[in-house]
């Protein structure tokens, strides 16, 4: 079975953007994921998220988890790429936060 591909676009209420041009964190180990955040000028106030995951049937969970993070942090003006190998929601939130921190935080 091919990898499950998910695409989301969100518009946080209080948009902030990444300090650095890009940021990367994580290794696609079992139960883990990697996050790549890249600035994109065309996405002002918005965030585009692309997920490749081995797990099928959890699309709603993904959407809830990612939306929650975006709403809370206000991350926008970037595209986020996630490669996932069956990470739990807690790990996903943690890695997203680490990726933001690794990019110098939000401004």
């Amino acid at each position: 079975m091919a990898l499950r591909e998910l695409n989301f676009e969100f518009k946080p209420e209080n948009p902030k953007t990444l300090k650095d041009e890009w940021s990367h964190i994580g290794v696609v180990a079992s139960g883990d994921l990697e996050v790549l955040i890249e600035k994109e000028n065309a996405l002002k106030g918005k965030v585009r998220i692309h997920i490749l995951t081995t797990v099928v049937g959890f699309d709603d969970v993904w959407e809830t988890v990612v939306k929650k993070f975006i709403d809370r942090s206000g991350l926008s003006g970037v595209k986020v790429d996630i490669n996932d190998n069956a990470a739990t929601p807690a790990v996903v939130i943690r890695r997203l936060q680490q990726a933001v921190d690794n990019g110098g935080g939000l401004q």
Partner: protein
Amino acid sequence: MRINWEDLQSKSFYQATARERAYGIVDKDTFKEFLGPRDKMTSPHLMVLGEAVEFDDGITVGVGMIKKHPVFVVSQEGKFVGGALGEVNGAKMAYTMKLALKTYEKMKEKYGTVPDDRKPICIVSFDSGGVRLHEANAGLLMHSESMETIWELQNKVPYIALTGSTIGAYGAQGFVCLSADVVIANDFGRIGLTGPEVIQQEVGKDEFDASDRALIWRTMGARSKYILGDVDYLIKDTIGAFRDTIVNIVDQPMSKISKTRKVGSPQLVEENLEVVKLAAEKKINDSKDLWKIYGNTNVDEIPEMPQEKFLSVVKRRPRRI
């Protein structure tokens, strides 16, 4: 992306990711990665099989500086598909090694000679179980390309192998590791051809019990390999310790560096075969028996003692060449 070089120096080599190892072993802020995560060169084979993919395909390659040496670094990530070599990460590895050779040849062409304090260096940090079975032929092809490059690097570019990460160097990567001029390991380093589970499957549990961790470590672990002469430097488990060891080696003339080579000439093959002959003659059942032959008395304590004590009392296999 931010990586703090100072923090890396005291970080455990065993726990570090491939990228951290690559950034940490060269001089501060000199590492330039080739085909990093932003290039998104993932494996096309894993994608269709429904296996997780990674943007760097489980390997970090690039170039940095150590003093005046251009240093080509390959660093494998064991947590992603066991660090196994596929088409994309294999090509990244083989062609980074080829770049070291090309750099040497360019320098030679331009300046006539390559001075000892400026010669290119090739470093591979192993953390791999061999060839990725999902793309076996492509992986084997890249394995043979890197072996060919190692042959060409001989007596030109020092090739230094590091082992001490979660997986070690197994399968095809076991060959590549032991073809190095210098092998550096911490206590977690492991080098082998066939992994313990597979040996047990083939020869039976009575012969080799894969659940016996102590047996595995004293057969394939760095301490045993150090006694046998496969590992040349046994050091502490920090990235800084690996870096310091490399820094001390690189300025030496090539003839001195390649003294610790294990393969590459008929004489060396003969010398290695003597160990096999010895093991057959003396009916060696356990690594401890071999350690005893090379003059170690306290063989039961060797796996447990602190590293400093081990290094002060150990007796190693004498080398003739």
